[in-house]
């Protein structure tokens, strides 16, 4: 049967075989030794027509409870934010999504310029000198920051705050093992990094101190102080920051960060069951030549016209091979484009308004929970997440909430034994007063 992606006709095939000088396609595979030649066909499902497959997969998708049909209070690193409709229109332009890495700049100026703009927006938001063209996600970006720090300082110990996203910390730990870097967890106190404990742990072997801003529990860390402690020991200060929060928070670059990383999923990128999202990586100028991944730079053509190219490639694997600063090749370019469109749509005013709505609505939720008799675990400043104590298992409560069309908060007991019956509740700008009130009321039913 003819396939719609395979244009060759029988006549084409015969003409081509004649040009090659063989009488069958099989002859072209004669170099595969007989004993390893695969016979027959793969034992996988038979092909389906376009319409039948779409119907089948739509039914499979419908088995999932999604955040469009339900009201989500689940965050913990992935958020349900306003996604401007234009984002999908831009990234659906096939000139962007069907292109490869822009290795031929004369016919890739669109991609190159769009990513140059992304680098600029991330540098602006983080207050850092420069940003790269993207990383896989916030977690691997943090891990790469650790490797950069260890290489730069020639030290083999990294202190990671206990209030960093636990899955990010797991990824950092896996990468660190490969590089024989020791990972030490800095304890938390009242939901933030324990400064006194940190002082006791930092030493002359400390390559980096890593914290999250706002941290995994939604709390605002004292970056200024942590940065000073880190720099006193000549380590690098690494901040994993939610870039949307930086619409209103003082950026890491103003508070001593040497490397700022994070995930731009908050800008126009769907939850996608965990990926693809969009890691970012920003540094001070002194670390420019140690950055992992691709960098886009401005230059001119032979007529003096402005143009953009991949630059400082001597850092990268295709040039430096085993001496490269990282092994990253593919990144998340299309998602960086998506994030750029969303950042542009929000713009200078919108990012402030959205970020502020997150804080104010979360504060409303905090007050509402407390008024309903719940204890909110940490009382420090927050962005868009709070930790609510419950009397029953959060997972059990969430099973009840989903029946009411509510996706409940993250069950912290899944990760932290001391935080059983604690829900991490995220309240974004999309949540209405009515929805927050409903959440509090529904959870209240389990708090008797």
């Amino acid at each position: 049967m003819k396939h719609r992606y395979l244009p060759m006709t029988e006549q084409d095939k015969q003409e081509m075989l004649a040009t090659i000088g063989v009488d069958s396609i099989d002859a072209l595979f004669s170099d595969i030794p007989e004993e390893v030649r695969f016979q027959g066909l793969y034992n996988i499902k038979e092909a389906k027509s376009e319409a039948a497959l779409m119907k089948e997969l739509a039914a499979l998708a419908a088995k999932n409870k999604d955040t469009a049909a339900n009201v989500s209070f689940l965050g913990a690193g992935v958020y349900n934010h306003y996604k401007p409709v234009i984002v999908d229109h831009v990234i659906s332009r096939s000139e962007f999504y069907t292109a490869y890495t822009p290795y031929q700049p004369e016919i890739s100026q669109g991609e190159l310029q769009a990513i140059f703009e992304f680098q600029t927006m991330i540098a602006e938001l983080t207050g850092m000198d420069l940003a790269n063209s993207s990383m896989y996600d916030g977690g691997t970006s943090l891990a790469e920051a650790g490797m950069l720090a260890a290489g730069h300082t020639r030290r083999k110990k990294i202190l990671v705050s206990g209030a960093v996203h636990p899955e990010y910390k797991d990824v950092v730990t896996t990468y660190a093992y490969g590089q024989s870097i020791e990972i030490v967890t800095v304890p938390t106190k009242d939901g933030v990094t324990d400064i006194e404990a940190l002082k006791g742990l930092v030493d002359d072997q400390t390559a980096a101190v890593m914290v999250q801003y706002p941290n995994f529990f939604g709390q605002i860390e004292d970056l200024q102080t942590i940065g000073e402690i880190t720099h006193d020991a000549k380590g690098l200060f690494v901040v994993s920051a939610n870039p949307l929060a930086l619409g209103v928070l003082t950026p890491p670059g103003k508070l001593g960060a040497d490397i700022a990383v994070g995930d731009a999923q908050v800008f126009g990128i769907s939850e996608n069951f965990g990926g693809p999202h969009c890691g970012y990586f920003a540094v001070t100028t002194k670390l420019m030549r140690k950055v992992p991944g691709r960098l886009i730079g401005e230059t001119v053509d032979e007529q003096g016209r402005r143009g953009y190219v991949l630059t400082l490639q001597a850092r990268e694997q295709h040039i430096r091979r085993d001496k490269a600063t990282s092994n990253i090749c593919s990144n998340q370019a299309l998602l960086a484009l998506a994030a750029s469109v969303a950042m542009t749509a929000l713009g200078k005013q919108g990012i402030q308004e959205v970020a502020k709505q997150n804080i104010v609505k979360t504060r409303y939720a905090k007050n509402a929970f407390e008024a309903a008799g719940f204890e909110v675990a940490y009382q420090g400043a927050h962005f868009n997440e709070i930790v609510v104590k419950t009397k029953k298992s959060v997972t059990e409560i969430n099973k009840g909430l989903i029946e009411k069309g509510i996706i409940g908060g993250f069950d912290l007991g899944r990760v932290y034994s001391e935080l059983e019956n604690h829900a991490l509740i995220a309240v974004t700008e999309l949540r209405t007063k009515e929805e927050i009130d409903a959440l509090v009321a529904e959870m209240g039913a389990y708090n008797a």
Partner: protein
Amino acid sequence: MHNENQSLIFELTKPGRVGYNLEPLDVPELDLADLLPAGYVREEAAELPEVSELDIMRHYTALSRRNHGVDSGFYPLGSCTMKYNPKINEAVARYSGFANVHPLQDESTVQGAMELLYDLQTSLQEITGMDEVTLQPAAGAHGEWTALMMIRAFHEANGEGHRNKVIVPDSAHGTNPASATVAGFETITIKSGEDGLVDLEDLRRVVGPDTAALMLTNPNTLGLFEENIIEMAKIIHEVGGKVYYDGANLNAVMSKARPGDMGFDCVHLNLHKTFTGPHGGGGPGSGPVGVKADLIPFLPKPVLVKKEDGTFHFDYNRPQSIGRVKPYYGNFGINVRAYTYIRTMGPDGLKAVTEYAVLNANYMMRRLEEFYDLPYNRHCKHEFVLSGRRQKKLGVRTLDIAKRLLDFGYHPPTVYFPLNVEEGIMIEPTETESKETLDAFCDVMIQIAKEAEENPTIVQEAPHTTVVSRLDEARAARTPVLRYTK
């Protein structure tokens, strides 16, 4: 030809314009100064653009017109498998039940997504001949490193942590040695022989008790099948090492030879190449890893399993696991696209894919061999490498040939790779191109070869029709400008 600079979005800014709107705040307004600690309220606003929605669409539409994708025209970029990106994949990945699902929802609410991933895992096991597959790695290089970390854990578990050498052929992608370094290994590079294949004697010379693994791409980056693969696997296994398959070129051998049957212990695939996840201008990718049984205990956590009751579950109880390599479960959206593609093609379709990919490459190779040097003259697989050394003698470099192709609306082949070919031109047509397209491209390549003889200037000064001419890369690196400043 445009003579004006394309505006940056920042240059279109006019204070007061917006491209968004929000519902008005429906809870009591509060002052940020009362909600954040002193010193933590941002004082200087981030200079993001201030433009209208139409401004945004015009800007990005203008940028898109300065970009070439597979839908724009032929893209025979060797080793990148620039095949057609099916539109059904894009539609399915945007189904709300796939796109708008949070990774930390209760498992009972995401069984459809987990079922899809499990079925994809199972299909990839069959396609690679491996015993288990993880979908967690985000891209090919990430998969390479994941597999090497598993090999390292395997050796350590056997009390052989001293194995610190990874062997890589000189024709390998740069990610191979880079991934070995990140996983904590030292790389040993071995030479290719006169025939373009791994030199078995050189391989025997470097193996030993410190061998951790051999990384091999098969067919290799010359597009040639490593015929001695069984012997190579034997050499490595005899000294206790593992054999790693770089699946970058799987498009050449689907349904013809499986890594698992060729003696490989583990493999990574590039779902954004062979399985049509679009390249996206450089990403996202997806780089699943398949392993044989003795590496299963070391798979990254969590492992997706099917329980006896038919439901799906993420298993975190894996004491020998290398740990997590990515938050959540991989680039799910790309995995959805790859799954849709596999289900569209079926077993007959995937076999036809490889057959036509190889037919197309061999056809082009034979049409062009008279006009360009062909260093390795034998049947190729999905791609082949010409040498521009004949044209170089005329003063026309391979780079010039690549730039001249731009004038005809083609994306050039991969050039100067692999490193073991002088003035290399690496052409991979893929199976989705028609004979007319292949012929038209070959005609242009032949014309350029003639131009190199008769009118080299037109090639040396190319491109002539693009929105910018050759860019000053030295200047970009010497005085880096990596962001816009007012």
